[in-house]
């Protein structure tokens, strides 16, 4: 049926000339509401029955009793539908509105309506969240006009807690915690552990991560990449606080500088305390990777190198850095584990870039999902996830890692489920959200299992006679 494939314009798209598909769509509504401006200057509306002749682009309207459908002015004809869902709200929202004029030429005394323009929305085709995102410019225009009218700045607001959470994308800190805690745990199994330097490392790493998140938002806002993305999710599309005018770009810049400065101060303190130039190098590399991730001229994520940057940042830099803070030296064991965690965190970025790929492409952000076909991205995901876990098995095989770390292989089925989810939901940003969540859980699960393995190793060696 033509209806299923008819292009539907969202409310953010200008009205268009009517097509037969529009009229076929109107025919699915049980009645229409006919509206016009009456002689007293009020809008008038009346519901009525109708029939469509889609090929002829004609609609015949049963003339209601009471207010007469006028033949001398513009009318609108609207079909509207929702399905109430008691206790939940409603769904299946759709409406279609056509403008035109009526004549007395309809059959059986009906009015013949000839549409000239049409617009509508169907949430089955343009989901509500996407429709809302497309409407953000209208919100900005309205609030700017309202501010001018009232003579004071009127901006959207969030409570401070939610604003901080949204601006910094705080929940993603869990990945930093996994990396840093694993570095500390491995160091502890090597007999090195100081609780307060461990705590400082966790705080410093977290501040650096938040600084990078905010910096990323600044550059994605300035480049237009976030604005071009009309299908953001809780995992992708940036914090959007500047796009929504909840925070200005200068405010974000101050926050980013403050977070970087605090992270650097903690890093310098740790370098002084540990007297480790190695740590200084790792910290400097971490800040460089974080800034160059989105900042010009390098803009690593814009060149398809974001995954490599994240792998290095959340793998060797975070995990190995935490290990170096405790032990003062490099070692192969934490390097292997850091590569596993780095790959898995990079895969979070990789999957989260999938729903962003159209907006990213429009803004010249050539991420891997922009560059490669869906099949290549899906296969690449599975291969990378398997490699990440195979590194653990190989590490145990050559006697580098303790055998309890094999428990991390329990993450394999979850990785396969993510792969399956990518295949099914690749083109659907909102159903992909569950897959993105599962992918984050994969990193947390593998990281958590490795932590358990190292704590068990620690306990075993403490209890061993």
């Amino acid at each position: 049926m033509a209806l299923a494939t008819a292009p539907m314009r969202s409310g953010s798209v200008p009205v268009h000339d009517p097509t037969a598909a529009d009229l076929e769509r109107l025919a699915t509504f049980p009645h229409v509401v006919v509206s016009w401006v009456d002689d007293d200057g009020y809008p008038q509306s009346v519901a009525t029955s109708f029939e469509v002749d889609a090929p002829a682009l004609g609609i015949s309207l049963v003339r209601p009793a009471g207010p007469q459908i006028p033949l001398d002015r513009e009318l609108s004809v609207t079909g509207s539908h929702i399905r109430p869902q008691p206790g939940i709200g409603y769904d299946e929202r759709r409406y279609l509105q056509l403008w035109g004029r009526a004549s007395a030429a309809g059959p059986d005394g009906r009015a013949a309506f000839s549409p000239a323009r049409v617009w509508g929305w169907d949430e089955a085709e343009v989901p509500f969240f996407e429709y809302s995102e497309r409407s953000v410019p209208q919100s900005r225009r309205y609030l700017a006009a309202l501010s001018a009218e009232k003579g004071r700045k009127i901006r959207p607001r969030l409570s401070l807690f939610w604003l901080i959470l949204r601006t910094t994308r705080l929940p993603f800190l869990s990945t930093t915690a996994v990396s840093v805690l694993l570095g500390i745990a491995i160091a502890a199994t090597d007999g090195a552990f100081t609780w307060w330097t461990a705590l400082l490392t966790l705080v410093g790493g977290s501040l650096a991560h938040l600084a990078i998140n905010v910096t990323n938002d600044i550059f994605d806002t300035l480049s237009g990449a976030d604005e071009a993305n009309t299908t953001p999710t809780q995992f992708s599309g940036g914090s959007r606080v500047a796009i929504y005018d909840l925070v200005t770009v200068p405010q974000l810049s101050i926050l980013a500088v403050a977070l970087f400065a605090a992270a650097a101060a903690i890093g310098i303190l740790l370098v002084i305390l540990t007297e480790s130039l190695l740590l200084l190098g790792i910290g400097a590399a971490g800040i460089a990777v974080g800034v160059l991730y989105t900042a010009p001229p390098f803009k690593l994520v814009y060149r398809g190198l974001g995954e490599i940057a994240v792998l290095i940042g959340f793998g060797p830099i975070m995990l190995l850095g935490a290990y170096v803070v405790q032990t003062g030296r490099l070692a192969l064991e934490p390097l292997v584990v850091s590569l596993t965690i780095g790959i898995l965190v990079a895969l979070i970025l990789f999957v989260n870039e999938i729903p962003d790929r159209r907006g990213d492409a429009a803004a010249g952000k050539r991420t891997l999902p922009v560059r490669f076909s869906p099949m290549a991205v899906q296969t690449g995901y599975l291969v990378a996830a398997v490699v990440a876990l195979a590194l653990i098995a190989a590490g145990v095989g050559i006697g580098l890692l303790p055998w309890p770390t094999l428990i991390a292989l329990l993450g394999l089925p979850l990785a396969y489920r993510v792969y399956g989810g990518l295949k099914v939901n690749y083109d659907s940003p909102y159903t992909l959200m569950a897959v993105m969540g599962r992918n984050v859980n994969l990193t947390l699960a593998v990281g958590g299992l490795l932590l358990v393995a190292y704590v068990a190793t620690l306990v075993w060696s403490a209890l061993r006679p």
Partner: protein
Amino acid sequence: MGWLPDPVERLLEVALVAEVTVIGRNRRPITHPLIPLYDGERIYLHSSTLFSKKLEHLKRDPHIAISLSDPVAMKGNPDRATIQGTATIIEEDPHSDWERLILELWRRKEPAIDAFLKARVALPLFFERAVISVTPERCLYWADGRTDAAPADSRAPRTEAA
């Protein structure tokens, strides 16, 4: 106190959607599906700043019509009505005015709104809203939704001249 006929008040109390028509540029009628709220005297509509074109139209011309036509959206009640009136926009503070003025009415009709409100952080602009307060002036009522029969036509009692 309100003057709307009882059957129309019953429609307003249950309707999840009304077809609300405002006057756009060039006197063009523009219809929006909106949830109507009723406090026994005035009808309240509300609009996110995201979908605020209708507010711009109402600022130019405050005349408005509210059509109640869909039995599915009115708990199966087949009656139909159209209410004409004049709108006032309340937008001093789009962040919180609406919560103070209409949240209780909204919650009564659509309890799920509380769950959405808890997730305000996910869609902050959706909850920046202006309230449209409508003073009803004329009402057409079609029992059983029979718009092929003449409607009952009622008008607001005239306010006495000062």
